[in-house]
């Protein structure tokens, strides 16, 4: 029985047909699975393998290499905080300790109510001009203070689970106006 919805399977087939070689569609297909299930389950990866005519182990070997794919279910929303140099110089550690106490779990953990999974990362997010910065459900949030973090989390908590790219309107981040403010 398929764990993927017809919509996800159709997206994987669309991706497969975009490239000169079907295998190139592995990463976009895994994204489609993660956006539906919230993580990459073995069953989901097996279906990707079938659709792309690969073995499940080939797909799993690719998935395990990339840090943005999740191998287990998490909260409804994902918070990723940068602690690389540019953010650290402008207070990333304060943001990290604030999140830890506010969400009541260490980096990598999920809140008791299942609303948030959060983690800090040394992988620079490319938001150094707005440091300290984080991403919530793929969207940049910059020039953070503990108060701003609270406002962002309050705004997101009540919102529905993070959707995939198909359902999300584009919102250009890091615009000149935002930087100037």
């Amino acid at each position, binding site marked *: 029985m398929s764990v993927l919805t017809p919509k996800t399977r159709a997206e994987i087939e669309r991706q497969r047909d*975009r*490239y*000169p*070689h079907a*295998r*190139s*569609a*592995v*990463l*976009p297909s*895994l*994204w489609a699975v993660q956006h539906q299930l919230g993580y990459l389950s073995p069953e989901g990866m097996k279906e990707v393998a079938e659709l*792309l005519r690969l073995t499940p182990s080939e797909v799993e*070997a*690719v998935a395990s*290499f*990339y*840090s*943005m*794919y999740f191998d287990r279910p998490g909260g409804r929303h994902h918070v990723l905080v940068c*602690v*690389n*140099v*540019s953010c*650290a*110089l*402008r207070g990333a550690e304060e943001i990290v300790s604030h999140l830890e106490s506010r969400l009541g779990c260490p980096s990598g953990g999920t809140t008791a109510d299942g609303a948030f999974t959060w983690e800090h*990362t*040394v*992988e*620079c*997010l*490319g*938001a*150094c*001009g*707005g*440091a300290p910065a984080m*991403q919530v459900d*793929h*969207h*940049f949030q910059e020039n953070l203070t503990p108060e701003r973090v609270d406002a962002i989390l309050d705004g997101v908590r009540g919102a529905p689970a993070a959707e995939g*790219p198909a359902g*999300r309107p*584009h*919102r*250009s*981040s*890091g*615009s*000149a*106006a935002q*930087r100037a403010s």
Partner: protein
Amino acid sequence: MAEYKLLTKDFGMDGIQTLAVYERIGGYEGLRKALRSMTPDELVAEVKTSGIRGRGGAGFPTGMKWSFLPKDVHPRYLCVNADESEPGCFKDRALIDENPHQLIEGTLIAAYAIQAPIAFIYIRGEYHDQRLLLERCVEEARAAGYVGRDILGSDFSCDIIVHGGAGAYICGEETALIDSLEGFRGQPRLKPPFPAVKGLYGKPTVVNNVETLSNLPHIVLRGGAWFASVGAEKSTGTRLFCCSGHINRPGTYEMQLGTPIRELLEDECRGIWKGRSLKAFQPGGGSMQVLLPEHLDLPLEMDAVQRAGSALGAGAMVFMDETTCMVDVSMRLVDFYQHESCGKCAPCREGTYFESELMHRLEAGALTPAELSTLTDICDNMNGKCFCPLGDTATWFVMSAYQAFRGEFEEHCGAGGCPVKRRHAAMAVA
């Protein structure tokens, strides 16, 4: 000398992300000119005349890179490197956010020059909104006849595929990018063969950076000779410098190459914050060696910065004030490389692990002087001995900081904590 706005001229303009506005300000005229009045060979020659060097970090002349493609071997592919992940670097994101069609036009011009039927834009996974924006812009350009079959009535056809990564710094290395695009783990390949000969799907391939390509519409419209008159003799044109850290006005500033670093810091970044003084800075992102206040009069010019023992790299300037602990900064950068090492070769896989473990204990004040002395040995066993530059560069900042701030490193030994942070905390209380 203030900012020199070529690529960033239209940043902030209302609706610049739409085709209509981009066309109204002369967008896609460069592509039209190239297709109507230049042969691919003439275009390659024009780009050679411009003297433009790649903006991704290595600074290789773009026209020369294109001319390495073997004659008459087809298909060829163009890969646009938008996997920007260098610590401190955020210019490609700005170029996509603030003028996406400029990049798409540049991509099509490059594809025409090398006669590529498909261009792949490989964008890092974290730039999710930017990927969606590019996808929307490519569809807009396709509907208007700029992408697809017989572009603008010419016999040149080119498709653009926007491909999202999934969190791997190493995929910014061109052969790892190609492996990732083919649907594998993103690990670098042995060179030679270089991508120009055997790249994506085993075919001749050019990999160019976002900023490099964003320059092309301007080079085509205003001419290679004009472009060569901007900037410095061997570093022509402008560059976007991503400025961050302890400065009053962080952001991306476009400067003519050759401008003194001091002007960038004082005029654009408005100096070091909180009335403090500069302790050190990194001129080219996380991979590059530390420079000191005495280097502020160096010109923003690739060769001059290299002679001073560092590099402009990807154009990321990270400024650190007098309260910064250089051990802490080194530790974070070493952690980054340890996290991003792809695991293919032992010196990098093991070396970054040893480095990271050592730097954490040093920052915690728990290392002995004898243990600290092994840092040089670890780095010696990595630098120049790794499969790709990631492992080499994992040693550059920490070794340069160890050299320039040896006292500070030694002071951490057995200190039971970070002495620099302790000192500044005490000063703040007093």
